[in-house]
């Protein structure tokens, strides 16, 4: 089994090596001419003013949060799916099914809450 890990090591080394060699070739073959004006921030020809760190909309965070929660849920369901056949053969298939459905159901209640509260809408309706 240890030999299988050597497989992974060789592939990782090849991948990193390929990227590294390409970057090295680039470094050797391209001109290096840094000038102050060349390194200045690009703002369509005008001198840049102010900070580029602006507040961005909170809905990106909400979408990312909901995505992560359900992605982790999927990650937990995968192992159940792989061993499900063995549990069915062992006679306790119903138990496993009910357990996993309960897990999905709890998270589904969370989704329903977010849905009802309007957090899944990209453009929120303003109460007039």
């Amino acid at each position, binding site marked *: 089994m240890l030999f299988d890990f050597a497989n992974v090591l060789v592939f990782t080394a090849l991948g990193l090596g390929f990227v590294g060699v390409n970057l090295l070739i680039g*470094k*050797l*073959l391209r*001109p290096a001419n840094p000038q102050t004006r*060349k390194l200045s921030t*690009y703002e369509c020809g005008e001198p840049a003013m102010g900070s580029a760190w602006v507040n961005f909309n909170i809905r990106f965070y909400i979408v990312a949060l909901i995505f992560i929660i359900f992605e982790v849920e999927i990650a937990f369901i995968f192992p159940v799916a792989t061993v499900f056949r063995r549990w069915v053969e062992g006679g306790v298939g119903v138990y496993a099914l009910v357990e996993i459905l309960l897990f999905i159901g709890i998270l589904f209640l969370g989704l329903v809450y977010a849905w009802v509260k309007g957090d899944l809408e990209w453009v929120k309706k303003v109460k007039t």
Partner: protein
Amino acid sequence: MKPLINSLPETVFTTKVDEILNWGRASSQWYMLFGLACCAIELMQTGGPRADLDRFGAVPRATPRQSDLMIVAGTLTYKMAKRTKLLYDQMPDPKYVISMGSCSNCGGLFQLAYSVCKGVDKIIPVDVYVPGCPPRPEALTEGLLRIQDKMMSERWLVKPSRPAEERAEA
């Protein structure tokens, strides 16, 4: 580590490598969309389907950071000249400039106006001038091919034939 630019001796092998590198550069000139006036329409059409610039590998980029060719298409005013210089400075080396149309060659039709810069070569170094008002797409394509010829004849890794001091005097 220092780049190998202009540092290798002139042998059969290194000049061939130079040719391959130059061929790679010349066949993928990414031009910066710098259409200022009517020549911009012809520039867009040259990039369009009928007189295709994409078949030469030239794709339009909106930002100077990703382009190595600047096609100045249109009348340059003094107000715009400052911004043009900054955008040219923000392009990474090696960079080339095509001056498209009479207005950017010499001020063109509006040479006697108070607000028109009499040619873009007053602020940035130009490699190829394409005359016309506006130049036909075929003319601009020829300009691009001349830049290709210029690129192919450059020495990239090989040492230049004259030392740097002599070259700087020219």
